[in-house]
């Protein structure tokens, strides 16, 4: 299936065969529309909008009024086809353009598409070729406008888009959790020249300055000095050089530091100051290094002057000079630190190379209004960030020569901050950053790999009668295992690596191969069974004294939480012993659907309702492991209400509200919640937040500070984590917090 097109463009010719099957690169072309292309000096970025048809598990309530027998399940599960919007972004070397255009032409079915939006310096050069091949009219868009639009888009939709680069730290990439409120910021785009743009709102930006000393200067001057043609090679030379052989340092003039001004001896006093002589030869490496320092320092200095003048602290760097090159990210970071004394941090973007294409696409898709939706990175379809550092492992180098993909799914709901976050700007959902914590990373990667067989088994079991389930499950296994391997080498590939991102990646991969809800049947079975015990549990609780009752309710809440298929220790027990029981779990004490929600959560909220508390029950919008989904919960609540007048009345009086949280993850990012939930929370004046379960209260939000009372509870169902937290497996976290008055 490998395409081979010996396209010879310009001075160098290489083997231009595409190493991946192109249908795995240009995916979903059949439904593609709204093309955009950004052609830079060496890389082309293609963007298109497409729809993906995939299976979703739907639950539907039976009509129970007719007859009710014990054997009937509570609700039926059906797998339906659903169409969702997906954005595809593909990056490849300019040399592949013709081959790629041919492939697209052959597979493009949608004839409504008439126009392709184009941006970037090369758009002009390839205009005729594109028009000829694709029969689409090339419509040029302003480069800077596209860049800013793209930048806004990724910052808003990808929480770990921005990172700080630290060459010598344990993890080179330190991701910043960006929040929906991204303005104002400064974008320093280092292409052949430098543009400094102040962005104040979605459509409000201004080029406040720039410099002609940029990537083109490094490349052009570097090529003259070293007779090295390629930009990458120049950077490689630079990474091996000693600039002190070429630059005049403060100590070369002073013999030491210039103490009274606080200028250390190693500072560069005059770039290339030592090369003003004909008696000496200078090595290519040293000159390249000196040039790199000169240009990086100069840009850093200007950036700081502009940041200071406009009082901005968020400064993002982009452009081909930066584009994932550790060498330039390091020198720019160094320069910014020097000139601002640490007051401003240099920030870089994971999808920096895509900004122009994303922006051009957005310009063309304005009538679909993509900005009114929230989008999420699809980990299954995206290549992730890779380091192109020459000194890093060769696997990454090889990959950089091929294709890079980014896919974004349109989320059904708009996501916003939980209004009760004490400080939204400093909120970080994840408890442990596995990018930084090496031990934890190794453990969890191992853990997820170990659990993979079980997940595959479960996926097949959930679709026994479906076609090619085994084959698809096997593909899922390969894909997810590959992702885990990638993350082992490049933990930073998808932003901060966390237990949450590992879980989410698994969900994305399962969805990719049409396993939308492998646990639907188990959940169904559990729910059915639990429902039978509901009244019995409620009754036994009612008989207890107040104090005993509270204690039992909390124990019940935690006991239910034990049945979590995400935890390997538990799933091992459950797989081997299907006759599990609630009493057994409770004794072991050692959020999910079934037992957890019906026998744990409902008795608990019932008690709250009886004492007059209004309850908003928030649950996942989409399936994740055996966590109850909002649609399941709707049915369950109806059924419980039919049995229990307390719940019935509460629903009728709107004292119990069921709201979805916008998430399809076993974890919870409180900065990306369904807007409706946020509105309900605000309108009802919520003054207590209870977060239950390991995923939502331990892996995430363990340290979350809320502006109201909060209760985080979970059973630690993982011995390694328990040990880390200073306890034993099946220990309990019950964390009640009251916000400090000062921040109140």
């Amino acid at each position, binding site marked *: 299936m490998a395409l081979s097109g010996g396209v010879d463009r310009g001075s160098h010719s290489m083997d231009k065969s595409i190493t991946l099957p192109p249908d795995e690169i240009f995916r979903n072309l059949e439904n593609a529309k709204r093309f955009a292309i950004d052609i830079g000096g060496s890389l082309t970025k293609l963007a298109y909008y497409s729809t993906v048809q995939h299976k979703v598990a739907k639950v539907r309530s039976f009509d129970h009024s007719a007859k009710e027998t014990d054997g009937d399940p509570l609700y039926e599960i059906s797998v339906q086809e659903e169409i969702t919007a997906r954005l595809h972004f593909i990056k490849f070397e300019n040399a592949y353009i013709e081959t790629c255009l041919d492939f697209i032409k052959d597979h493009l079915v949608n004839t409504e598409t008439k126009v392709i939006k184009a941006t970037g310096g090369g758009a002009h050069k390839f205009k005729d070729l594109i028009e000829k091949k694709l029969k689409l009219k090339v419509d040029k868009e302003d480069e800077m406008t596209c860049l800013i639009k793209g930048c806004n888009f990724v910052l808003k939709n990808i929480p770990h888009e921005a990172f700080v680069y630290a060459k010598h730290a344990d993890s080179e990439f330190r991701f910043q959790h960006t929040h929906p409120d991204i303005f104002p910021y400064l974008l320093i785009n280092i292409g*052949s020249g430098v543009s400094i743009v102040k962005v104040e709102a979605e459509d409000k930006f201004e080029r406040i300055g720039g410099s002609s000393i940029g990537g083109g200067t490094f490349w052009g001057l570097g090529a003259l000095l070293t007779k090295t043609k390629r930009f990458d090679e120049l950077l490689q030379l630079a990474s091996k050089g000693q600039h002190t052989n070429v630059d005049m340092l403060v100590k070369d003039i002073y013999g030491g530091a210039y103490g009274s001004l606080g200028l250390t001896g190693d500072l560069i006093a005059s770039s290339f100051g030592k090369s003003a002589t004909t008696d000496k030869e200078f090595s290519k490496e040293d000159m390249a290094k000196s040039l790199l320092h000169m240009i990086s320092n100069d840009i850093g200095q200007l950036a700081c002057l502009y940041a200071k003048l406009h009082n901005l602290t968020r400064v993002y760097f982009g452009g081909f000079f930066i584009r994932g090159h550790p060498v330039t990210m390091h020198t720019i970071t160094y320069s910014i630190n020097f000139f601002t004394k640490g007051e401003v941090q240099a920030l870089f973007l994971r999808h920096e190379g895509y900004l122009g294409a994303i922006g051009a696409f957005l310009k063309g898709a304005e009538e679909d209004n993509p900005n009114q939706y929230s989008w999420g990175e699809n980990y299954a379809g995206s290549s992730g960030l890779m380091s192109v550092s020459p000194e890093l492992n060769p696997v990454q180098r090889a990959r950089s020569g091929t294709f890079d993909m980014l896919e974004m799914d349109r989320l059904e709901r708009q996501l916003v901050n939980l209004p009760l976050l004490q400080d939204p700007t400093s909120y970080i959902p994840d408890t442990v950053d596995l990018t930084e914590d090496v031990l934890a990373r190794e453990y969890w990667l191992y853990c997820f790999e170990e659990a993979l067989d079980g997940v595959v088994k479960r996926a097949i079991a959930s679709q026994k009668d479906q076609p090619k389930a085994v084959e698809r499950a096997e593909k899922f296994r390969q894909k997810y295992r590959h992702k885990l391997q990638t993350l082992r080498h490049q933990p930073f590939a998808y932003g901060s690596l966390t237990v949450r991102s590992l879980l989410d990646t698994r969900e994305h991969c399962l969805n990719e191969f049409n396993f939308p809800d492998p646990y639907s049947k188990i959940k169904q079975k559990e729910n059915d069974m639990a429902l039978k015990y509901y009244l019995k549990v409620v009754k036994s609780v009612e008989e207890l004294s107040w104090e005993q009752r509270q204690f039992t309710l909390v124990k019940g809440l935690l006991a239910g939480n034990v049945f979590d298929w995400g935890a390997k220790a538990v799933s091992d027990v459950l797989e081997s012993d299907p006759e599990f029981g609630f009493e057994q779990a409770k004794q072991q004490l050692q959020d999910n659907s079934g037992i957890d929600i019906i026998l744990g959560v409902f008795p608990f909220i019932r008690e709250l309702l009886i004492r007059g508390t209004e309850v908003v029950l928030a649950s996942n919008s989409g399936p994740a492991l055996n966590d109850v989904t909002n649609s399941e919960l709707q049915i369950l609540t109806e059924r419980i209400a039919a049995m229990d007048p307390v719940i019935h009345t509460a629903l009728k009086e709107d004292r119990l509200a069921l709201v979805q949280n916008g998430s399809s993850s076993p974890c919870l990012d409180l900065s990306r919640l369904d807007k409706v939930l946020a509105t309900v929370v605000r309108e009802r004046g919520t003054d207590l937040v209870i977060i239950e379960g390991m995923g939502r209260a331990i892996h995430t939000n363990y340290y979350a500070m809320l502006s109201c009372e909060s209760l985080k509870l979970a059973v630690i169902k993982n011995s390694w984590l328990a040990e880390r937290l200073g306890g034993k497996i099946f220990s309990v976290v019950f964390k009640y917090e009251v916000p400090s008055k000062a921040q109140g």
Partner: protein
Amino acid sequence: MDKAKSVMDQKGSGPCCTNGMHKPLRRQLSNGSCSPFSPTDDDHHHDPQTNGSPAKRCRLRRRMESVRKNRPPFPWFGMDIGGTLVKLVYFEPKDITAEEEQEEVENLKSIRWYLTSNTAYGKTGVRDVHLELRNLTICGRTGNLHFIRFPTAAMHKFIQMGRDKHFSSLHTTLCATGGGAYKFENDFRTMADLELLKLDELDCLIQGLLYIDSVGFNDHPECYFFENPSDTQNCIKKPCCLDNLFPMLLVNIGSGVSILAVYAKDDYKRVTGTSLGGGTFLGLCCLLTGCETFEEALEMASKGDSTNVDKLVKDIYGGDYQRFGLQGSAVASSFGHMMSKEKRESISKEDLARATLVTITNNIGSIARMCAVNEKIERVVFVGNFLRINTVSTKLLAYAMDFWSKGQLRALFLEHEGYFGAVGAFLELLKSSDDA
């Protein structure tokens, strides 16, 4: 006024060895009574403590003697040892009496003769005759101030010459500033038995500049600017007087660049600096064109066309980039055309030299302008030897300041470009003996 020091002065050990010379110049100036700006002031000074005890009377007698000779012994030098060039100012007394001439030691005479009868020294030393300040009266003496420069690379030769001419026997104070004052201090001591009085280069720069501006350039103003800087046809150099000096942004372009905000003669701060300076221009030019000297590099630059090397806005956008109000003729990427192999192969050395000059100059202009805006200063004064015989850069800076600030900022230049540090050091010599 420390009388003890003037005793030492009479013994001939010179004031240079006394302590406390490293305190910032600005403070010394505010205390000093005999300011070099008004050389006759010293007679006004009267110490109220001089009546009284025999000890005090004795001190008065010695004081009276020193007042007569309240100036350092000749020769009077000021030296600024930079990264690339050493700048030397030398005061040649023209009012030497016959009696004095007779007393003048042979050594001193030969130095005076050597410096004033030549305009070039060795292979690389040069006296900038056109900058000579004539009939200057300093500390009661009238004479000419000479401006001499030689490469810092020849410093050791210079020190050897000092040893060979028994400079140390003259018991003069060698006031030196610039980084080399620190770097070569030990060499002066061990090779030529000379002690340097080390002075801060920025202090010296400012005091030297203010002094030269105050005495003027042989009855002409020291300062100039360009009229119609945005119009290459009608851009004319115009002398001007710096009436309201402060605040000023002082941009000193030597090997590297220092940018100072000066609020008063003794109140300034270093705002920032850049390593892209004169040294970068020459260093890159040598590598790119094989030239050897600044003069050669400038000569080539004057004949070149940078637009063959630089990518302009119009090269990218076909014209102006209207969305951002960028003119088509603005440089978008310095050396941007050199990314192309074909263009690299066809480019001339002159074009490369010109592009290097334009790149460095524009960058300095850009940083200076940002600093001026950040510091809210409208007057930007450019000095330093990078600007010597460099009208391409001075005009470009004048244009850049005017254009990018929409006429808000004015670029000013001074005739003695790179010598202010040396002048500042020279003034310190006179002051140090006066203080003593």
